[in-house]
Structures are given as structure tokens and as C-alpha cells.
């Protein structure tokens, strides 16, 4: 691997909840006791080892809860920015592991959906899954000489999400070090998106809508979807040949090619945010493939976040430095976004104004010039340092910001991280905020 996870960390993202992640994410009782008792004898025992132990525990707890818990593990690992390195490495495992469905259950799922078994529908169908997705698995099939990818959902996923979330909630609160009341609006937002992801009919519909809407973007390709062979548990689409980001980077691509892919990513996300006002909110490396003809294929539209105007306007308004230099306007925007609360004292207003302004400046940096180099370590170090600073401030103990931040931050910082992994230089003025 030609990048180190530390450099990817940028805890600045979720002002709403970021501060607590790093600081208290590590407070998993037992390991601490172990840590300190070992430390008596061995002064060199590193913090890293402790984190490693904690991550191990968290991971094994999570991996026992399939379905939505696995999804949460994925989400946490997406947020490399807020989790220490050891957690990230453990959680990343969950992105590629889930128990396979048995052949007979696959046949049954097909019979229930279409009244036919897979071999009656397709010319060939491989009962062995070729990959696992978080709430299902992918099979290879052929029909009329065309290779297809068939995604099948685990039974009971939709049903068990709420109960899984109930199970994981206390655990998550402890991990984030927040109490239930503070977090509940955010948890609800996540719950909604997760439930949507289990609706495969909706996913097919959206995939088709978004691929149609985004087809004008250069160097982006989408598989064709087959609603006829899709149901609430099954999605049929074209098989896309290509490499995942990690594999792609291992082939030592030229800078030019990395820029091309990076540009496609940037355009894809910003077109959606600023033109469609709804965005593929899962910039997880597993959702993209780099095709042999050097294009970026988007293969999963499970998670879509619609951006309401009352969030869009104040948030993206702050990207322009003109707005940020107007103090009253900026404070007004922060109030609209619930980053400054109505009950805050003048000193508090001043304090949060400064802190969030600094954050927005960092966030907006790629937009300030027409071209931005995402390999820029200084930029990511700046984000990281800012996040560290926030964790030290008791003022950020309480979460702030409207619920939409969760997915919008996840999307944008996820995008920044992907571009950083790619070390791409992109034109950032292709699709600008529309205000």
C-alpha cells in the first residue's frame, strides 16, 4: 500500500459529534485495566496496542450482529477521519466479510420473487457468491451472452434493522461517549437511511434515475439495471469488470490516469450535490470500480441523501469566501444549521463562530482555487490537527448541528479521502454551488 492510514485521518468532519469520537472512542473499560496493569511492568506498552485491543473487541462484538450492525461497522470505518488507525483497520475487515447465503435459500428467494428458480431465468447462474455486500451478496449470471451481477439480500435484514440498532445503541453511545438523548436525532437519521438501503426496489429505481441524470458526466459509467429481474430482495444489473481502488493503486497508475479518475469522482459528487440536490451518500471504496478502459463505474446506489434547501443554502453558502468574511451572515448561517444554539451567550456565539468558521475554511479550501491537489499533506494534516484540537475542547462535548450533517459530511469527507488515496489533482470549479 502506498499510503498510510494516519495520513488519511481527518477528524475535523463532524463538528456535530466529531470531538467525542477520538477522545472517548477508546474508553472500552476492560482494555484500560489491562493496559494500565501491564503498564506497571512494561512502560513501553503503547497506546497503539491498547487501541488494537479495543478495536478487536469492538469488531468481534459487531461481527456477531449481522445486517445493520455490520452496516454501522462499515459506516464507522468510513469515517476514518474520526477513528484512530487501529479501529479503522479492524472495521475495514467488515467491509468485505459477511456470512454467505446457502444455495437453496437463493433458489427460494428467486422462487418467492418470480415464481422461477435462477436457472429458469438466466442461461447460467453461479450459486456461489462472488462477493459479499453488507446486507446481501453478489452472484454472477449470464443471459443472452451478457454477463450480469445479481445482488441478493439476506432474509430478515429489513426486519432486524431496528432491533439490531436497539442492541447496538448502548454500545455506540459508549463508543462515542455520548448519551442517548444527545444522539437520538442522529441515530434516527442513520436508521432511516439504513432502512432505505434494504429496499431493493427503491434502489433499482434510484439507480436508474441517477445513472440517467448523471450520464453526461465525463468518464463515469453505470451498469444497466434490469427491473424485470429485480424485486424487493433481488437486484439484477450488468456485470462491471474493473478494479477496486486499492487494487487499482497497486497497478501503479500514471498521475494523469489518477487525475482522470479523481476528476470523475469529483464531478460525480458535485454534480449531484449542486445540480440534483440529492447525493449518493456512500463514498465507500467498495461502491466503485475502475474499468479497463479507464473509467469510473458506480455500482451501488443504496444510500441516497436528499439535501433540503434549508440545509443546502446556509451550508454551501459558506463555501464562498465572500459569505465567510461577512461575520453577521456567517453567524446567521450557523444558527440556521443549529451549530450555534438560540440559548448561547454572546461569548459562546463568538467562540463557536470562530471554531466553525475555521472548520468551514478548511472544508472549503478545495473550492477556493480552480485546481486542487488532494495529495496535499498539509491540507490533511491541517484537518487532522483541527480535529485533535476540537477533541481537547470541553465546549464540543455536546453535539451540535442539524442531522443532515451526518451524511453530507460523510459524503464530502469520504470524497476528500478517496481523492487523497488517489493523490489526484482535480479541477474543482466544474460544478459549483448554486445559490
Amino acid at each position: 500500500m502506498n499510503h498510510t492510514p494516519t495520513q488519511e485521518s481527518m477528524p475535523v468532519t463532524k463538528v456535530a459529534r466529531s470531538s467525542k469520537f477520538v477522545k472517548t472512542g477508546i474508553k472500552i473499560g476492560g482494555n484500560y485495566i489491562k493496559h494500565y496493569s501491564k503498564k506497571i511492568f512494561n512502560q513501553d506498552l503503547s497506546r497503539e496496542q491498547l487501541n488494537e485491543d479495543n478495536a478487536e473487541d469492538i469488531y468481534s462484538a459487531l461481527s456477531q450482529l449481522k445486517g445493520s450492525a455490520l452496516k454501522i461497522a462499515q459506516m464507522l470505518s468510513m469515517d476514518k477521519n474520526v477513528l484512530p488507525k487501529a479501529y479503522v483497520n479492524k472495521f475495514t475487515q467488515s467491509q468485505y466479510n459477511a456470512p454467505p447465503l446457502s444455495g437453496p435459500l437463493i433458489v427460494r428467494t428467486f422462487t418467492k420473487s418470480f415464481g422461477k428458480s435462477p436457472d429458469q431465468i438466466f442461461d447460467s447462474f453461479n450459486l456461489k457468491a462472488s462477493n459479499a455486500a453488507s446486507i446481501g451478496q453478489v452472484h454472477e449470471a449470464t443471459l443472452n451472452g451478457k454477463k450480469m451481477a445479481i445482488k441478493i439480500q439476506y432474509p430478515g435484514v429489513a426486519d432486524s434493522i431496528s432491533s439490531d440498532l436497539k442492541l447496538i445503541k448502548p454500545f455506540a453511545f459508549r463508543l462515542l461517549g455520548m448519551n442517548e438523548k444527545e444522539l437520538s436525532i442522529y441515530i434516527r437519521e442513520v436508521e432511516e437511511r439504513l432502512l432505505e438501503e434494504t429496499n431493493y426496489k427503491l434502489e433499482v429505481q434510484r439507480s436508474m434515475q441517477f445513472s440517467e441524470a448523471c450520464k453526461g458526466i465525463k468518464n463515469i459509467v453505470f451498469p444497466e439495471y434490469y427491473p424485470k429481474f429485480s424485486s424487493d430482495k433481488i437486484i439484477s444489473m450488468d456485470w462491471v469488470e474493473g478494479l477496486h481502488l486499492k487494487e487499482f493503486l497497486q497497478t501503479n497508475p500514471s498521475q494523469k490516469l489518477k487525475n482522470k479518475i479523481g476528476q470523475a469522482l469529483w464531478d460525480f459528487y458535485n454534480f449531484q450535490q449542486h445540480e440534483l440536490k440529492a447525493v449518493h451518500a456512500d463514498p465507500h471504496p467498495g461502491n466503485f470500480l475502475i474499468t479497463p478502459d479507464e473509467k469510473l463505474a458506480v455500482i451501488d446506489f443504496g444510500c441516497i441523501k436528499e439535501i433540503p434547501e434549508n440545509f443546502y443554502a446556509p451550508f454551501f453558502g459558506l463555501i464562498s469566501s465572500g459569505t465567510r468574511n461577512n461575520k453577521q451572515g456567517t453567524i446567521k448561517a450557523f444558527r440556521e444549521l443549529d451549530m450555534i444554539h438560540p440559548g448561547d451567550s454572546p461569548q459562546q456565539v463568538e467562540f463557536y463562530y470562530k471554531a466553525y468558521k475555521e472548520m468551514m475554511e478548511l472544508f472549503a479550501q478545495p473550492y477556493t482555487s480552480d485546481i486542487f491537489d488532494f495529495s496535499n499533506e498539509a491540507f490533511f494534516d491541517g484537518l487532522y490537527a483541527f480535529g485533535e484540537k476540537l477533541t481537547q475542547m470541553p465546549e464540543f462535548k455536546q453535539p451540535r448541528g442539524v442531522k443532515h450533517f451526518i451524511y453530507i459530511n460523510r459524503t464530502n469527507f469520504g470524497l476528500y479521502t478517496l481523492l487523497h488515496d488517489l493523490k489526484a489533482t482535480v479541477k474543482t470549479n466544474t460544478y459549483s454551488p448554486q445559490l
Partner: protein
Amino acid sequence: MAKEISVVAPIASKIEVIKKAYVDYVLTENEDPKSVFDFAKRLKITEAEFYKYFSSFAAIKKTIWKDLIVQAINEIKFQPTWVGYNSREKILSFFYAYIELLKSQRSFVIYCLNNKKTKISTPSFLLDTKEIFLNFSEEVINEGLASGELADRKYFSQKYKDGLWLQLAFILNFWIEDDSDGFEKTDEAIERGVQLSFDLFQRSPLDQIFEYGKFLVRNGKLKEKMGL
């Protein structure tokens, strides 16, 4: 109800008519008919004719259940995927096919299971079903043992099929309480339960522990070392 019955109706269809009339009766009245005499009268057949086909109401029940499992087994064996399945998949596919088939008789299944007299032993209407299931499982398990898919353990491997029977009984009871869409939770219960059983039937670290233990007893002079 029994208008279509004529003395010349072929035996098979007469059996079907009696079965159907019986199911209709119990599902409407939620109890068995008072007597064979009464039931035969409703059907407009003689008591003697009834006894020609069934010795009792219990016998009808048993036959209906037996027919279901026979049909399920025939169905899966006919599927083209059957030959490619290992024993784990064969059992899974049986469970799915069986539950699917029971759907057509769900009310009757619920009636039978809720009115069974015994809580512990197999209810009498399931006796034939059990026998057929055990034979079927044994056949599939033996294939698994022969191919090495399953661990051949002295005494225990003969018990695998009984384990599967308990599982089937569990699934039946689970299914009649299942109110999820399309009985999705039953699918999940089958998938997890049968997978777990087969994981246990496979060679596992426990076998190795056991064998290592035996080895130590034979060669490690364990007893002397422990001062025994």
C-alpha cells in the same frame, strides 16, 4: 358438499374427497367430527365405505401430513440443482420446499399443532412424517459422511438425523407463530439453524481436542504425572 361423490369414483379421488371434507370440517368447527357415523352421513357415504379408506380421523390427519412430506421430497429431488448440492444444501432445500408446501395448508397445520395432545413426544399425526424424514435425512447424511463433508463420529453420526428432526419440529412451531412478511423470519431460522447443525456435524476443533486427549491418555503417562 359431497354431491360429487359417486360409488364409481376412483379410489384415489375418493380418498381425496374424504381428506378434503375432513380438513373443511375441522377448520370450520375447530374440532374433529363427533363420530365417523356423523361424518359419513354428511359426506353421503356409508360408514363401511369410510373405513375402507381410513381407520379413524387420526389416520386421515396422518395421511395428509405424510402426503405433504412425500411431495416436498419429490419436488426437490426433481430440481436440476439437486444433484449439485452437498448434503448441507440438500437438507436446506428440503426445509425450504417443505415450509413452502405447508403454506397451502397453513390453517390445517396450525390446527394440528395447536391441538396436539403431547408436548414432549412426537404427536401421532407426525409419526409417518417422522419416519420418512429420518429415512430421507439418513440417506443425505450418509452421502455427506461418504464424501467426507461430515465427520464420522462413533455413536454420534447415527444421531445426526435425530438432531435434524428436532430442528424440523422447532421450525414447524416457529413457523406457525411467524407473522413476518412472506414468513421471512422462518427462512432466517432455517438458514441459521441448519447451517449451525451442519457446522456441528463437520469435523471441528472439538474432534481434535478429543483425539488429542485420547492420545495423551495412551502415550503421555498422564495418570502417573497427575499422581494417580
